[in-house]
């Protein structure tokens, strides 16, 4: 089974390479193999988005798509083998650490272990399963997870979930994303003849920085395309027209993966535009910018459309706050609470802020010594580092992330730092200053990880132990901050529950394993953070029970399911603790809302007919 999963991941990678290489050759863009695969990933996300909007996404459809990509990939591999000489000994030696790291990353990703009971089990996993079984993108009107991720990652995650089940979901972000990231860095290291030691250091830095970059929300899938753009800015300025078409495709994929990418893309795009103005004049620069924007808009259109249709806004919160409860105001905290003191509090809560700002200052100083166009590229990268570090309050206030938004900045500053490290000779001019810069970056970069204290227990290590041994006991011995639930369990109980509901009807489920439901049989709605997203006029969570029942009926919900035996895996102690966390507005809001929701469900059971109850979970019928 392990070999089958690893083989499937490699086939998907080959397929992405096939798509990207085809576009690169059409545009006469000399891309490296992993650059082509990264471009292919972005094209696949655009194509998958269109399939999802048309309701045609499914295991068969994506298998056909992947198959076509594999054929293209094989053709281009053969073509490259004929056209290019075999790699030399020094390149092979440099590639060795990347190869070993790639195998270890794939082994870690092949069977996911570490999934949290809230975000993953109630949010991301059901959405991926729903996309696979219904074929429709972003069709959940009560779940917030497509709200700011726009569902881009689920298009690739759905491939592996469709083939192997939810336990293979990490093959997308950690697996494919990790391989793309290592490949992009490895290619550059090989060209620059880093040697075994330099390559090993680069691999260590990349892995240390991303050690805890999970669970299901994408990180590495974002880092790889970002890294490609950063390398272009260091190496290929001023960019050619072909670059701008690909820039548009990549920008669309990044926004579909994580809407906070807009800040990163905006700053880099301004830098590219300015450099282009200097090189070719404002007229041509404007033409290229419009070309990139049109391509980006076309590719991201399906995601924006799905978000408008099911969440009420094309891009939260920049273009509207969508269908959320009125008491939430214009964001998780509301703009009224975005005072200078609050902003400063959340900016300074980022433990990595000083390091990122200092590295950015150092890069800007190096950039100022370069020729004009190259200087603009370097300063744009330094400015992007500052911007993504400072966007954390935006993530906190608008999205309300529980980790001060650091999770939303990590993929972007990781790409900026890693790209600058790989190209340290270009950044610095390559003399003694360069060696000092590179050595200091080796120390500084891993401290930009989410948890900068290297003595913490690592979820990456527990995932690795599980991927290698398949033993829950051994994985839990490495790291178990709170109970980790086996993904595969609970399928039969959920199936029995669902049999009690009439096919084709709407169900709102607050159960411990909602991703086990058959999303094709009924319209299943999961509620990961009640009231955050709900059909208009907004869920009256704090109104009367009668108001709630009539609202749910009007929204097409006939059945309510609740795992009352284990509170759907949310222990009362955990929720009480989270409700008091002023520094974690999202956790506090969601826990308070979940307590209110569970209270409503318990009361509703005494008033509506119970059609199923197994002592752990009940199903009630709201139709009578």
């Amino acid at each position, binding site marked *: 089974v392990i070999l089958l999963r690893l083989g499937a991941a490699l086939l998907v990678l080959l397929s992405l390479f096939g798509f990207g290489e085809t576009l690169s050759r059409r545009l006469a863009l000399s891309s490296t193999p992993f650059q082509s695969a990264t471009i292919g990933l972005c094209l696949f996300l655009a194509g998958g988005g269109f399939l999802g909007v048309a309701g045609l996404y499914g295991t068969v459809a994506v298998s056909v798509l992947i198959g076509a990509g594999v054929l293209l990939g094989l053709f281009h591999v053969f073509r490259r083998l004929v056209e290019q000489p075999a790699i030399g000994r020094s390149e092979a*030696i440099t590639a060795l650490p990347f190869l070993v790291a790639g195998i270890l990353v794939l082994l870690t990703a092949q069977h996911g272990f570490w999934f949290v009971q809230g975000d993953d089990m109630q949010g991301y996993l059901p959405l991926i399963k729903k996309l696979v079984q219904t074929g429709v993108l972003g069709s959940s009107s009560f779940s917030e997870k497509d709200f700011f991720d726009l569902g881009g990652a689920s298009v690739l995650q759905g491939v592996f979930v469709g083939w192997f089940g939810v336990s293979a979901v990490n093959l997308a972000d950690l697996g494919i994303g990790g391989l793309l990231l290592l490949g992009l860095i490895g290619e550059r290291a090989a060209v620059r003849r880093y040697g*075994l*030691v330099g390559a*090993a250091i680069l691999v*260590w830095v990349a892995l240390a920085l991303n050690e805890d970059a999970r669970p299901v929300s994408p990180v590495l899938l974002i880092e790889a395309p970002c890294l490609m753009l950063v390398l272009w800015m260091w190496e290929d300025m001023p960019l050619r027209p072909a670059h701008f078409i690909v820039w548009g495709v990549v920008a669309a994929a990044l926004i579909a993966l994580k809407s906070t990418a807009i800040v990163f893309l905006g700053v880099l795009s301004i830098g590219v535009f300015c450099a282009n103005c200097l090189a070719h004049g404002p007229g041509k620069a404007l033409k290229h910018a419009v070309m990139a924007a049109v391509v980006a808009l076309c590719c991201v259109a399906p995601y924006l459309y799905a978000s408008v249709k099911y969440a009420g806004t094309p891009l939260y919160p920049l273009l509207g706050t969508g269908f959320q409860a009125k008491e939430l105001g214009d964001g998780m905290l509301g703009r009224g609470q975005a005072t200078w003191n609050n902003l400063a509090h959340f900016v300074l809560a980022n433990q990595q802020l*000083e*390091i990122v700002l*200092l*590295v950015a*200052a*150092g*890069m*800007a*100083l*190096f950039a*100022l*010594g370069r020729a004009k166009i190259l200087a603009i590229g370097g300063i744009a990268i330094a400015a992007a580092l500052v911007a993504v570090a400072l966007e954390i309050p935006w993530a906190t206030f608008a999205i309300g992330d529980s980790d001060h938004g650091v999770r939303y900045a990590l993929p972007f500053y990781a790409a900026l730092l890693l790209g600058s490290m790989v190209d340290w000779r270009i950044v*610095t*001019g390559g003399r*003694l*200053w360069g*060696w*000092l*810069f590179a*050595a*200091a*970056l*080796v*120390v*500084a*970069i*891993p*401290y*930009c990880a989410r948890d*900068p*204290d*290297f*003595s913490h227990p690592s979820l990456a290590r527990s995932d690795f132990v599980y991927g290698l041994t398949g033993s829950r006991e051994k994985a839990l011995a490495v790291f178990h901050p709170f109970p980790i639930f086996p993904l595969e369990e609970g399928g039969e109980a959920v199936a029995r529950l669902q049999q009690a509901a009439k096919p084709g009807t709407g169900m709102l489920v607050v159960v411990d394993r909602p991703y086990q439901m058959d999303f094709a049989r009924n319209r299943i709605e999961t509620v990961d953070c009640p009231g955050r997203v709900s059909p208009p006029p907004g869920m009256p969570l704090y109104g009367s029970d009668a108001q709630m029942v009539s609202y749910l009926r009007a929204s097409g919900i006939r059945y309510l399911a609740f795992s009352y035996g284990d509170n759907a895996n949310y222990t009362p102690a955990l929720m009480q603790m989270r409700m008091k966390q002023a520094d974690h507005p999202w956790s506090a809001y969601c826990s308070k809302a979940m307590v209110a929701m569970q209270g409503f469900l318990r009361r509703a059971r005494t008033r509506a007919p119970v059609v199923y109850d197994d002592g752990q979970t009940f199903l009630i019928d709201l139709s009578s």
Partner: protein
Amino acid sequence: MKRDHGEQKGVVVPALLFGVAVAAGYVVWRVAAHRIHLHNDVAVALGLAVFVCGAAVSAFAGGGARAGGFVLAVAALVVALMGLGWLAHLYWFRAVDSPGLTASWTIVGVGALSLAERLTRRVRS
């Protein structure tokens, strides 16, 4: 074959030595942090020092005395700059910072020196 002219030697011995350097640095850090209970920053610094010495030996085995000396010289400069950064941070912010922060102070220092050097060269030419 002379050993001190930066010639490329085989890769197996330097690679093994580098692996040993990584392992030794890791072990020193873990022991210092978790057995001797030194502050984690100090333990990281000790581990890094052991790793740098090992990397220098590895470079010596692979590229001769010049390569080994170069790695040591770069490491010494980094340590010196990091020390200055550490002192500066302590003076301005009255707080002990992490190795990551001192390293990023180093980057600012190196960037400033590099810019000063380039500007001086431009003025002279």
